[in-house]
């Protein structure tokens, strides 16, 4: 090791120390220029509460899963076109759980919180490698029992299977209706929220995957 290397190392460390100290100590808190800008508060990320149970249900051959966060803030125009609304702040990022059997990709799992009639509903969506739904499960909710029974009904959830990001998710047309004969179902707003949430997740996932493929093609063109 030469003297010059040592001197360089010492200078680099001292410089790093000075930068860290400056960033932590000296810089005053930045305020928004416009007073009208309101604080944007994001909801905590929806956790995947029961991976083992859901993997057994949707990907029985799975041996592993990995988490991947995709930033979609650069895709807001495409997202807006496909969603038919402005993407929310939470939709700037998508957490994807990639499911594998050893090295073979089996699909992905997305978890999303939607606004139910009586509280947040957490929905798990299992997706095939081709982007179609493999299965949907409700992992958490606080709906009263009659509503919970309808939104957790196996046949209602099964109607999601096979749909992709281009599919329609209208209750009673593309999905089963949750209205019972006895009275208009109170489950309808929550069911609609779930359907909208699953569709949004599929679109976010498709946009993220398209961005991946475009990047891959670009790399192949320009190695």
């Amino acid at each position, binding site marked *: 090791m030469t003297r010059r290397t*040592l001197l360089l190392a010492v200078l680099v460390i001292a410089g790093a*120390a000075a930068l860290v100290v400056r960033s932590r100590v000296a810089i005053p808190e930045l305020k928004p220029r416009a007073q009208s800008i309101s604080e944007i508060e994001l909801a905590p990320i929806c956790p995947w509460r029961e991976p083992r149970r859901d993997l057994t249900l949707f990907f029985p051959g799975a041996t592993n899963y990995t988490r991947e966060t995709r930033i979609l803030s650069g895709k807001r125009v495409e997202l807006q076109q496909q969603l038919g609304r402005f993407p929310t702040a939470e939709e700037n990022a998508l957490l994807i759980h990639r499911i594998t059997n050893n090295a073979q990709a089996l699909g992905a799992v997305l978890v999303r919180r939607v606004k139910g009639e009586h509280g947040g509903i957490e929905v798990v969506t299992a997706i095939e490698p081709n982007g179609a739904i493999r299965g949907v499960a409700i992992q*958490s909710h606080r709906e009263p029992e009659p509503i919970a029974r309808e939104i957790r009904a196996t046949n209602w959830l099964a109607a999601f299977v096979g749909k992709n990001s281009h599919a329609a998710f209208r209750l009673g047309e593309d999905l089963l209706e949750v209205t019972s004969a006895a009275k208009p179902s109170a489950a309808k707003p929550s069911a609609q929220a779930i359907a909208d949430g699953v569709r949004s997740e599929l679109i976010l996932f498709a946009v993220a995957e398209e961005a991946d493929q475009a990047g891959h093609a670009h790399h192949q063109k320009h190695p």
Partner: protein
Amino acid sequence: MIRLIFRSVTSRPLRSILTFAGIAIGTAVLICLIAFGEGYRHGLQRELDRSGVQMMLVPLGCPYDAAARVLRNNTLETALPEAALRATREDPAVAVAAPLLIAAVPHRNDKRTDLWVGIDETALLLKPWWTVKSGNRWFATSNEVVLGADVAAVEMRAPGDKLFSPEANCEFRVAGVLNRSGTSDDSVFFIPLATAQSVFGRTGTLTAIAIRLKDPALAREAAARLQRIPGAQVVTVTEMMGTFLNLIGAVRTLVLALAAIAIVVSALTVFNTLLSAVIERTRELAVLRAIGASRAQIFLLLIGEALLLTLFGALAGIALAFGSGSWIEATAKGWLPLAPSGVLLSISPHIIIRCSLLALLVGAIAALYPAWRASMLQPAIATKSE
């Protein structure tokens, strides 16, 4: 002189780097320790002050554990009889006695737990800093709920929305959503006390009573009177703070001892490095003396080397403290009986300057003997053959 100092330090790079690393680690440990201790004390004081409470009436058992749990909105296994509230309010020294009924409702299937806290209007007197993000600060009807900022975000609720508790089989209407406070209130569903007692099947019982006195000087006599309430015991915030600080103090002493060892090791490293340098460079130093360097200049040369090593070591130690601080804080918080919310590791310029000066002082002291020995070398040694 400065060029000579640099040359001496860089001429033995491995030894210098090891010395430098030892000083860096010692400084980092010291900075983290002092910053964490001060941050913890301030955080605890802030949290206790913010609770607006001077004493707590809790069920019999470990008073500190009970009070710590209640302050963090955790439930207790035992309960106070509601008669204790009347007795507390009748005490002449008590300005505000706010009853609390805390119910932790686990959702076994969903792997989460809801914290419901039943309060009455007196709670607002103890929490004047409560501000609503939207809606109202208080309940208009008995089936309304005020949500902490986090639960409102997780449940995606706004004022006027419905909220159902499947476990209590009870539907509420959201009255308001509180602004984020950075305390455990952010994760709580607040409902009227009577409603909480009814839906959680705890009629006539309370988890604790938070007390504010008319005059803090009356604490001792008020505590003596309140202690006589059957099934209840009093714990003052000052006692709680003292107990927690004592607990932390024991750990702090241990870690201070470790930091002292780190400093002593750093000092010995500097001492060893310089003494070796003096022995190896005897001839070189004697030549310096022979060509006119004074004893003081040789002495300062060695002290300068020590200060240079210590200075860069201290700078690296500061960077290391900032880099590893969040990890140390996260680990330490897990061990603490009552970890205040917010950032506890507050590395202030004051701490940095204090620790850096200490490191420089230790370096200079460790260099005294090698520097004195070097300054005592006779110029004649330079003329001796190898």
